[in-house]
Structure formats: structure tokens, C-alpha cells
């Protein structure tokens, strides 16, 4: 039998698309981790802590260098949480320039997340315990807060 005579209609792309759509519907109906922020809360003893490191230009300078090395690719140079390593993240890092948000996060919560990390299932924030010192972590808290202060000052300046 010659090959041409054996030829039959190929499966139409529309039919293939329908198979694809059916698979999407099937997968969609399955349970999955929602893209909701589930940041763990620090233990009470941490929440009660105030930043023990005084704010000085030197401390902020050291923290800026550390932020650039360890934090910037995710949290961004401007602290808005849109660094170049966040493109694939369903939940982006928080916006540190949001003064209202930052006022709800106490120092102890911030330092605990820096040292212990956030929710591993929904975020990529890993703890830096053992990689940086406690003093450096507290310095970072000052630096993180400076984003909202700077934005606030800029907005007041405009007014």
C-alpha cells in the first residue's frame, strides 16, 4: 500500500486545544496553596523588644551595605519590594516605603523575620540567623524603617 493512500486526517488543532482546556479545568479544580500572605508572627518575647542599637549615620551606612548585598535583589533599591529577583514570585516582598504598613510592624517582628525567615511555602524569605550578627539585624531594622521615613519626608517637602 502506498503511503499517500494510507494518509488520514490529522487531529485538528482545535481538538488539541480543547484537550488542553479540559486539563486546565481539571488542574484548576485541584486544591493548591493560595497566593495569600501568611507571615508568621514572632514569639511574644520578640514582639516586646525595642531596637537596642542606636541610630547613627555609621550604623545606617553599615546597614545600607548589608542591604545591598543581602536584600536588594528582592526588596529593591528603593525598598518597594520589586527587586529583579521577584519576577516569579506570586507574593512580592512588602513595600517598606508604606508608612502606614510599617507602623503596624514592631521592631521585634521585623528582626525576628530577618533572623528566622518568613513562610517558606508562599515566600522566598529565608532567615539570616548565623549569617549576620544580631547587631547587624537590628541595624537593618533601622535601615528598613528609613524607607518610609524618607518617603514621608519627601511628601512633606512637596507640600
Amino acid at each position: 500500500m502506498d503511503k499517500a493512500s494510507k494518509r488520514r486526517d490529522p487531529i485538528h488543532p482545535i481538538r488539541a486545544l480543547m484537550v488542553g482546556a479540559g486539563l486546565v479545568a481539571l488542574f484548576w479544580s485541584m486544591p493548591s496553596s493560595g497566593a495569600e500572605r501568611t507571615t508568621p508572627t514572632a514569639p511574644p518575647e520578640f514582639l516586646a523588644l525595642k531596637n537596642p542599637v542606636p541610630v547613627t549615620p555609621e550604623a545606617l551606612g553599615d546597614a545600607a551595605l548589608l542591604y545591598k548585598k543581602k536584600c536588594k535583589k528582592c526588596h529593591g533599591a528603593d525598598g518597594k519590594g520589586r527587586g529583579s529577583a521577584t519576577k516569579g514570585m506570586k507574593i512580592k516582598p512588602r513595600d517598606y516605603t508604606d508608612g502606614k504598613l510599617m507602623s503596624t510592624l514592631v521592631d521585634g517582628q521585623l528582626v525576628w523575620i530577618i533572623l528566622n525567615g518568613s513562610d517558606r511555602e508562599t515566600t522566598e524569605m529565608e532567615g539570616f540567623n548565623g549569617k549576620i550578627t544580631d547587631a547587624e539585624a537590628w541595624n537593618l531594622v533601622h535601615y528598613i524603617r528609613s524607607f518610609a521615613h524618607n518617603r514621608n519626608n519627601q511628601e512633606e517637602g512637596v507640600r
Partner: protein
Amino acid sequence: MKKLLVFSMFTLLSISGLFALLATEAEAIPAFSRQIEKNCTVCHVAFPKLNETGRIFQANGFRFPDDEEWQDVKDMASLPVSAEIEFEVYRNSDDGATGAKKKVESDALVEELELLAGAPLGKDGKVSVFGTLAVEQENNQKVDAEYATALGTTFIQINDLVGGTGKGLLNARAGQWDIALPFLSHSQRVIKNRYLAQKPLGVLGSGDGSDELVRRAVELNGQIAAADDSGMPTHRYAVGLIRNDYENRALSATPPATEESARKDRLAKPGVYGSYTVTLAEQVSLGVIYKRDVTNETTAVDPPSVALNKYGVASELTIGPVIGTLGYFAGETANNLDYDNWLIEVLFVPNKKVVLGARYDQLTREQFNPAIETTFTARYNILSNVYTLVEYRLRQDDTNIAGSNDAQRRGRFYLVALF
């Protein structure tokens, strides 16, 4: 000798698996992850498939634009070497001719041991290098196949020929790699089965009957990455010259009389290729690729040089945990029996542990019955660097246009560790 090699590989696998299971997650991650101090999932949807962050990092010579300087690999503490071991169990079956017995073959083997190294060099990251060396089965899934050592993706890239440091606006690359689209390539398959756009068609990867995925090439590439929260699209582009692939002879109407004649003067007329991809809102990618493959062969019938046009267009859409890919590819052949290929793939990634996938791949060729491959995959990540995978593929190809006489039904189990 072969038994010794297999025994050595098993021993290595067992030891590495034990280490992987005992090690903490943060310690047991491969080289790039160690360099950037981030988990694999920052760059991968599911290893090896890249997300948008991974694509930016890769195209940019393994650098994040936010980093203004890079760790020098002269620092031995950050030696950028990883290894991957794949253990595989498979079962292939074919219906025999009418009245004949069903043909079945199965085996368990170390499918591959691969060493990978890559990094930007120097603090300004002006030059990036990447290389892989694999010990793998010579003939995929043939019982008692021999092992061979092969160089995989290996290249040198000079970064930032124009524009600021770390932006990757224009780079020059030379070496051999999987020439494809940033979001659709063989080196990023989660579903292990190969794309039909590769082997028979040669649009993605090497192709033209070759088992190899890489092509030797020189390339200018680059990207214009969207600013952090601008909402602007990211553009990626590449143009290059490819060396004549020896395996191109499979597409000639008349194969060369001897291998000697086919091997002559491969650079006489190099092939060319180009690709462009745009990504919107980190969720939608649309890419086009064109290749002009040239066969520099002298035979009694064929002219010394045959140029074959091949092209493809594909898109990827991410909605929540679902990633859908749709592609159309086409290619000329020397005997004018051209190929068309439709591809639909859906991945469901509900969390960092589980991946489910399905693919429908259809190849048509003038005067032949179509070849259809349907593949289903389920994967479980034991650790961020160790996973198991079960895959089932059904193939319909009664006139063997997809090549290699692969089995009609194929079940595979994998245990893969990276460290």
C-alpha cells in the same frame, strides 16, 4: 568494565542520595543557589524550568541587575560547581503485528551523572561561563547500552557590550547550547519526554534526527528587562550563526556516500537563526524563532549546500498555579515532505512539593499519517534538590515520522538529586 561503571554510579548515587537526605535544605542546594544565597524556587517554577526571574538571571550571564558587583570565583569558598544524578526505571511496550506477542522491555539504570559549573567572572561580571559534562547512556533506553562522556551546554559570554553593567542589553556568546526560546527549551523540560519540535523537526534544540540537544554557535543576544514595577514588557532577542550539523544528512534525499564526505567543510555556509520573545506582566510570554539550517554536504544528487527554513511561534500563560504552553512549529526537509507540529502543555504547580503535567504533541508530514505523543507526569520534591518523577507516554506513529522507532507505551520512574 561496564558492570564496574554501573556499580560505581549506583554507589555514588546512594552516597549522594544519603547526603542529600541528611543535609539541611539550606546546605544542599546547587551552585547558583549557593552563590545568590536564595532557594532554587526564586529562579525555577520547578527545576529545571525557569520563571521570569530565572530567565533574566540566565540571559544576563547569571547576574541580577540589582547586584552591582559579583563574587569573584577565585574565592574557592564559592566554587560554582554542581552535580546532578538521575536514576531511572523504565518499561517500554509495543503491540506486535496482528497475532504477534506484545514486545516489552524494561530496565533500571543510572541514566546520567552530570557536572555543571557556571558563574560570572570578576567583580564586574564582564564575562560569564557555563559548562556541563555528563556521563550518560549512549543510546537512550536501550537495554545494556554503553555509557559515554559528553560535553553538554558549554559557552562563554561577554556581557554588556552596550549599556550599563549588569543590564545585559547586548551580549556575545560562543559555544554550544540548546538553541530555543527562553520559556520553551529542552534544557527546561519538567515533563521528561522530548518535544517533537526537537528531534524530527530541529526547531527547538538540535534535531534533524540527532539525539543531541546542543548546537555549536556564535550569538549576539540581549534583553531589555522591565523596571521593577513599571508594568512594561521584557524583551529578549538573539541572532546567531550555527555550524552545520552532521546529523543534517538525515534530511537529505540522498545520504552522503561516506561519513568522510559528510564531515567535510562544515563551516562552508553556516546556518543562521534568530529569536524574539516578549513577556508581559510576568505572566504572558510570546516568542518566535527562525532557523535556516544549512547542510554542507556533497553527494551525487544533492547540491553541496541545502538550506532548510524552520520556524516556530509559541506562547506561555501563567494563571495562578497553572502554566499553559501552546506552540506551532514547522520545517522544510530536503525531499520537500515538510513537517508541521502542534504542542500543548499544561503544568500545575500547586505548591513547592508537587508538580503535575500533561502534554499533547502532534507531528504531521505530507503523505504520512500523523505522529501523536501524549504524556502525563507527576513529580514530588522530596527536598528542594531531590525529586521523584513518574511519567507515562503514549505514542501513535505507525509510519515512524517522529523517528527512532520509540515504543508505543512508555512508563518511567526517576529519582533525581542535585547538589
